[in-house]
């Protein structure tokens, strides 16, 4: 049920908001701002930093505006009809200055060596709302140590402004409560209990919500200055939830992943597996060029040569194409899955479509804050299923492929990979592929599988190409390429297009329209990012 709307003014601007919403949130939603530290939309209200102060007033019986004497915290004050809110008064400005000055007195101001610099709310607010000088003329800053607080996190206690966002996150969102405030007054510190580190699958979010450079992610430590990074919207490939993310990259390297807000899927968070699981993008084992087996030895080849070889092999026509099996990958995007299937079926209606392996936990993992890590550890199992259902005809599941190869029903096997780990095929499966007459591997990491293939297509990893995943809620989400493919690798969708369409110029829009039409997808979801 839609909530009642009220109208109030903020520094003279009328704002309409849902009744019961905090002034701060309503102001932020309307595109204005009030400086704030402890408030975070994904957490309970602490009201302790006291930075978000405003003056408020209401009309009295005769309609005359009556301002309330004390300052109120906008994070804690609900909007009311005809309320007047001001953050542009001298009293509010003085108060902001004093809060910022107080936060800096025990702050080391080591911005030059601080990872947060450039996206630090202490820097930003001090610049915009603070005093230009500090009156704290003493060397007696309270010094607190740097602490190792978990697998992925360091805590620079000196820089902490005690907003307690991190404490509330571990209590309310991850439900693990590893963090607490210890000691009192200006000796207060964030710490872990009894040396037991932060151990939860959402811990990386702590580095995001910390408004300063106190909680920092180890994998990103001293890697890049944030102002060099370009953030490209994308979708996480590590499970079928499809969390919305930003790929933060510079000079062809993805340095970190950040959550991109989508209230239908991931809210404001992502899990550690996704966040810290992109090292494979730049692994030494990345396939950077196609390969062909010539006289039993694999040799580098151009894409044209590789495509030609496949064409020659299947030139025998119907009998050869009848015995073609293509293994779709749950890590491939919808476009790739579709094109590969369409190509195979174009050669022969008897060609077999195989669903690739999906690694799965027993069940989804739901956290107290509502965040879900899906059991299926692949982004596009649903897409794969939709493609298989669409094409119909001979279809097998991964486990049935063995029989098909042994019986000779599958002679030529095209294996689509793209898994973020190298050895996704077990020893038994590898032995099985050895029995295939002709093995084509389309993958991103060099492995036992690619080494025994007759043709290897060096594909692009998800961050290097555009595509669409269908998540476990049946939401189709398209994403863009952030960086260039490794070496001479190519966007797999273009590769497969060339395989099927020959010289027809690649037209992604037309392709997506065709797929949407064929699979009955109602347009890709517009992700709600903030």
């Amino acid at each position, binding site marked *: 049920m839609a909530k009642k709307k009220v109208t109030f003014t903020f520094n003279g601007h009328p704002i309409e908001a849902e009744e019961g919403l905090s002034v701060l949130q309503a102001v932020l939603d309307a595109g204005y701002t009030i400086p704030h530290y402890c408030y975070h939309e994904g957490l309970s*209200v602490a009201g302790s930093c006291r930075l978000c102060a405003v003056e408020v007033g209401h009309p009295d019986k005769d309609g005359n505006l009556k301002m309330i004497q004390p300052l109120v915290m906008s994070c804690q004050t609900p909007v009311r009809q005809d309320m007047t809110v001001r953050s542009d008064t001298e009293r509010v400005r003085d108060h902001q200055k004093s809060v910022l000055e107080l936060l800096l*007195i025990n702050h080391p101001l080591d911005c030059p060596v601080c990872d947060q610099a450039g996206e630090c709310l202490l820097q930003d607010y001090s610049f915009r709302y603070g005093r230009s000088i500090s009156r*704290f003329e003493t060397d007696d800053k*309270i010094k607190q140590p740097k602490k190792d607080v978990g697998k992925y996190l360091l805590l620079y206690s000196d820089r902490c402004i005690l907003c307690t966002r991190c404490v509330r996150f571990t209590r309310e969102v991850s439900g693990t409560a590893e963090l607490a*405030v210890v000691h009192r*007054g*200006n000796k207060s510190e964030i710490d872990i209990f009894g040396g037991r580190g932060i151990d939860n699958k959402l811990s990386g979010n702590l580095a995001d919500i910390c408004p300063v450079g106190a909680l920092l992610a180890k994998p990103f430590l001293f890697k890049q200055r944030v102002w060099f990074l370009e953030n490209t919207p994308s979708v996480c490939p590590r499970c079928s939830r499809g969390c919305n993310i930003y790929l933060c990259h510079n000079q062809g390297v993805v340095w970190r992943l950040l959550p991109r807000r989508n209230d239908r899927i991931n809210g404001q968070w992502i899990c550690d597996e996704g966040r810290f699981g992109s090292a494979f993008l730049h692994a030494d084992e990345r396939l950077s060029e196609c390969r062909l087996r010539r006289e039993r030895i694999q040799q580098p080849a151009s894409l044209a040569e590789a495509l030609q070889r496949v064409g020659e092999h299947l030139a025998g026509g119907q009998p050869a194409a009848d015995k073609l099996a293509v293994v779709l990958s749950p890590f491939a995007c919808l476009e790739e899955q579709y094109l590969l299937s369409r190509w195979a079926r174009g050669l022969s209606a008897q060609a077999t479509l195989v669903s690739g392996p999906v690694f799965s936990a027993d069940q989804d993992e739901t956290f107290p804050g509502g965040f879900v890590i899906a059991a299926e550890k692949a982004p596009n199992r649903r897409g794969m299923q939709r493609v298989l259902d669409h094409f119909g005809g001979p279809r097998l599941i991964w486990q049935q492929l063995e029989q098909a190869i042994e019986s000779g029903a599958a002679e030529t096997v095209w294996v689509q990979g793209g898994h973020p780990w190298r050895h996704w095929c077990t020893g038994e499966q590898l032995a099985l592929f050895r029995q295939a007459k002709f093995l084509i591997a389309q993958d991103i990491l060099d492995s036992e599988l690619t080494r025994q293939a007759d043709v290897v297509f060096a594909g692009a990893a998800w961050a290097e190409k555009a595509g669409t995943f269908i998540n476990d809620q049946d939401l189709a989400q398209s994403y863009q390429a952030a960086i260039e493919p490794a070496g001479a690798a190519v966007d797999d969708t273009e590769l497969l297009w060339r395989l099927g369409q020959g010289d027809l110029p690649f037209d992604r829009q037309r392709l997506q329209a065709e797929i949407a039409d064929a699979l009955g997808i109602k347009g890709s979801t517009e992700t709600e990012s903030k």
Partner: protein
Amino acid sequence: MEFEPVLTRNLGVPNIGDLKVYQSRGGYEALRQALASPRNELKQTVKDSGLRGRGGAGFFAGVKWDFLPADHPGPFYLVVNFDESEPGTFKDRYLCDIDPHQILEGVIVTAYINRIDTAYIFIRGEFHHQAEVLQRTIKQAYKEGLLGKNILSSDYSLECVLHRGAGAYICGEETGMLEALEGKRGWPRLKPPYPAVAGAFGQPTVINNVETLCCVPPIIQRGADWFKSMGTKKSTGPKLYGISGHVNRPGVVELPLGVPCRELIEKHAGGVRDSKRCKGVIPGGVSMGVLTRDELDCPLDFEGPPRYGCMGLGTAGVIVMDEDTCMVTALRNIVRFFAHESCGQCTGCREGSGWMLQILNRLLGGQGRGRDLELLLDLADAQGMAPGKTICGLSDGTAWAARTFINKYRSEFEAKVSTRDRVAV
């Protein structure tokens, strides 16, 4: 008219901690009377009496009770504030020492009036002896049917739990106390919601000071008019004054509200010791500010101290300082206390009090700088719940103490600014 003691009526009676002895002196008669009366009548009597909270803020007790939501299914809780940690304050402990059953009777009568299911007595951690006494008192009361199911064969039942604090001043702030009671860190809560609506364990809760509750049974027994016959128009009834510092006879005395500060010192505490002159008096616990020796006509009731620039009467824990007292040191000690006891949530209180302490220490060390006094006053202005700058009233105390000490003894503070740095005025 000679004042007849109310709260100290049983002072010196041998074995008064024994239930039988307390009863022989009319103890628990008020409870009997209350159990036989309609609740709203009782509440009205308390309202009419003008009884105001003795815990520091002086809020009208009956009015506070009215905030409990009438249509709530319960359970309702009463939390008794026995955290008494304000420097200079030792009246609640005294009440427990001289007459523990009196406290319990106040608890039970108040609980009955407010349909309370469970009363928690939150006692300061350092009060080992008093905790033992109260525990014994509660046990006796259970045994004699004064607590538990069907109290004195009525249909009213009440459980009573003694909860010992872990030693933090901030747990005396009512919502810090609720958090501590729930087993959490004693961090004052944001208000609203107020405890009357969502207090202990999220249930409607009445919170009162020990002395406030002790006033309730006599009011029930003797009526609102009798209570109002003591004290002043807006500050009714008797009050315990705790006197400490440089006086000949420190201790607790019971007097009608409104006794002038000078009279309290001269007549009831034997005057300033060693025939010295008085320099200043803290009227009600160190958070209230200070009265100079020229302000001793100040009546010690809820209205008096604010007229002299103080925050209020507070706990009426009066600290007398003689002419040899260094006011800079006195303020430093006070600020040291507040800096140490700040729970650390609010930026202004956490960082401000610590910074003030640093400045005061350098003033004392003769290293004061030209702008230090302005800075101290600025920092005092950066905190306090009343101006909306912090969550609770602890930092109002820091601010009022600093403001009144510096403004009223300015020259003494200026003398501590190093000569090199002193600015010509």
